[in-house]
């Protein structure tokens, strides 16, 4: 594997899931360093210096999020790890927790110390029940070895850590829905403000961070924020776990240094090794199902003809007109035999299924989009249906409490933007569209230049 491995370097060591092997390989050094040699604010400062951005998808600077945490006297604060991992195309946290559970636990202890939390939680999607058991076993080991509980390593810092499962709901990856769920309720997102940093779990100040973000705190504390920030490009610092899926020779979880080129990631020997079955790439969704899909010619190059890199900035180059987002790093690749209409339909169905139903634009709009796309996919669509989809999109976007509405609207808008001819072909050649796929689209260079 090319590049530095800050999180997954040790996953292949036999027994690394046990406390003893993990500790022997340098594990829990960040706890020792933070609790014995650093103040909580110093830990926060290192995370700020590292430039670490939230790895769940939004990319908000973690150190800044931490610094927003309210600290009223006598009110408990909580750290909640978001292990809901529900964005289609994303399965990196599952891999990390299954292979090296103590890395997350170590990150939780160091981060809880920084935030002054004495009771922290890992909220994990219910489908990952087997990982909940792996984590609980590791937590029991951490208690037995004095890394959790009272007076950790003689520092006077106390921490209890609890794992709680969801019950199957995409929306619980949204932090306020997650907190509702953790309180034993339906996962309906809350209005913001107040933000969780002020009123979170049970009304107490709470920080919610993704698994990978919390794990990254370990190397940041061990090596210093500046060292971490030296890896990567611009405001995309450090390493990132990428979940690669779809029609690839070698799908899976990869830890990359930010700044690897998209071309190398897809075709390089150290990474996915190209498109499966000798086919050509048709499209790619680089950051999980909610981010815009890109046609092949905009995947490895930007509209301006520059090499596209695996960074927050480069993947977003061109805005929504010709770019996308790094998102959660859910990297989904489509070969030339895939139908974009069918794919857009399956994602629309997903969002309609997962809308919590609280806001009308999302509840109704996602259902309409599913129905209209079903018509188009199964040969009953009209040209008006394509513009209807665009209309519905505009009615959802920005009009809901949480980002699920936007997440449902963007992929549909992007699919029509880049693959309109394929949607139209489903209308004009409805019978043929039932028997074969449209194939590759031609780059529309003049259009891109005009944008």
């Amino acid at each position, binding site marked *: 594997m090319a590049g530095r491995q800050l999180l997954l370097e040790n996953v292949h060591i036999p027994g690394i899931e046990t406390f003893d092997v993990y500790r022997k390989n340098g594990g829990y050094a960040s706890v020792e360093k933070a609790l014995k040699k650093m103040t909580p604010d110093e830990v926060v400062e290192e995370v700020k210096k590292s430039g670490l951005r939230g790895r769940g998808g939004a990319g908000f600077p973690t150190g800044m999020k931490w610094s927003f945490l309210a600290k009223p006297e006598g009110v408990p604060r909580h750290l909640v790890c978001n292990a809901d991992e529900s964005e289609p195309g*994303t399965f990196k946290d599952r891999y990390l927790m299954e292979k090296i559970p103590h890395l997350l636990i170590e990150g939780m202890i160091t981060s809880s110390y920084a935030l002054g939390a004495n009771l922290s939680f890992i909220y994990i999607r219910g489908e990952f029940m087997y990982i909940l058991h792996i984590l609980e076993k590791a937590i029991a080991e951490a208690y037995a070895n004095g890394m959790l509980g009272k007076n950790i390593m003689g520092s006077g810092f106390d921490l209890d850590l609890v794992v709680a499962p969801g019950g*199957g709901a995409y929306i619980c990856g949204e932090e306020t829905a997650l907190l509702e769920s953790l309180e034993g309720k339906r996962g309906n997102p809350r209005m913001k403000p107040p933000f969780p940093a002020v009123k979170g779990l*049970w009304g107490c100040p709470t920080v919610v961070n993704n698994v990978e973000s919390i794990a990254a705190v370990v190397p940041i504390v061990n090596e210093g924020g500046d060292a971490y920030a030296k890896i990567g490009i611009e405001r995309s610092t450090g390493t990132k776990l990428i979940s690669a899926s*779809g029609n690839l020779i070698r799908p899976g979880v990869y830890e990359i240094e930010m700044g690897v080129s998209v071309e190398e990631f897809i075709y390089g020997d150290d990474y996915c090794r190209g498109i499966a079955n000798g086919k050509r790439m048709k499209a790619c969704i680089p950051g999980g*199902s909610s981010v815009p899909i890109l046609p092949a010619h905009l995947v490895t190059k930007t509209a301006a003809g520059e090499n596209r890199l695996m960074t927050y900035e480069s993947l977003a180059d061109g805005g929504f007109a010709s770019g996308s987002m790094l998102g959660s790093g859910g990297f989904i690749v489509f070969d030339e035999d895939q139908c974009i209409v069918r794919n857009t339909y399956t994602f629309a169905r997903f969002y309609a299924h997962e809308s919590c139903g609280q806001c009308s634009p999302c509840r109704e709009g996602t259902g309409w989009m599913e129905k209209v796309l079903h018509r188009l996919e199964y040969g009953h669509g009209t040209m008006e249906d394509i513009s209807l989809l665009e209309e519905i999109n505009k009615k959802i976007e920005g009009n809901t409490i949480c980002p699920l509405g936007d997440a449902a609207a963007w992929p549909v808008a992007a699919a029509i933007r880049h693959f309109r001819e394929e949607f139209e072909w489903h209308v004009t050649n409805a019978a043929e569209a039932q028997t074969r796929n449209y194939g590759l689209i031609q780059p529309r260079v003049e259009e891109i230049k005009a944008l």
Partner: protein
Amino acid sequence: MHNMKATSPTQQDLTPVEFSTDMMTEINRVIAMFPEGKQKSALIRILHIVQTNFGWTSVPAMNKVAEILNIQPIEVYEVATFYTMFHLNPVGNYVFEVCRTGPCMLVGSDDIIAYIENKLNIKVGETTADGMFTLKTAECLGACGYAPVLQCKYKFHEHLTKEKVDEIIEAYRQASLLN
């Protein structure tokens, strides 16, 4: 679909149920994880325990959970109906939840679903006549790199092929003979 038709709560047998000592031990362990007064946070995990023990999540079982947590039954119903993992009607001994979202679709989940339907002679949502298998579809199970996937009793079966589906079905049949 045998005798396992969808039943509304009013059609269910509402005779109160009791939980075994083992179940209660596990439930009390989970409740104790949360601070005093915050027991409701244990609800989702308790519903998982209930379903693991009974195979599905019935109204009487939910009523019992409400009693244990000292909350209103409606607070349990509204949660159980929100989350997709809870079966609110009787199901077969083995429930296959086959993922059908984008990344799985790209590598053939539609064919896998059709193959299972054909093999078990049931449609999605139905249970085999012997009560052994129920087939459901699921939206993204978070295993996209190992697609196509299905989940049964919390276990992931990955990189599915028709041959692998045959093996899985046979293994569960054998397992049920041992029970």
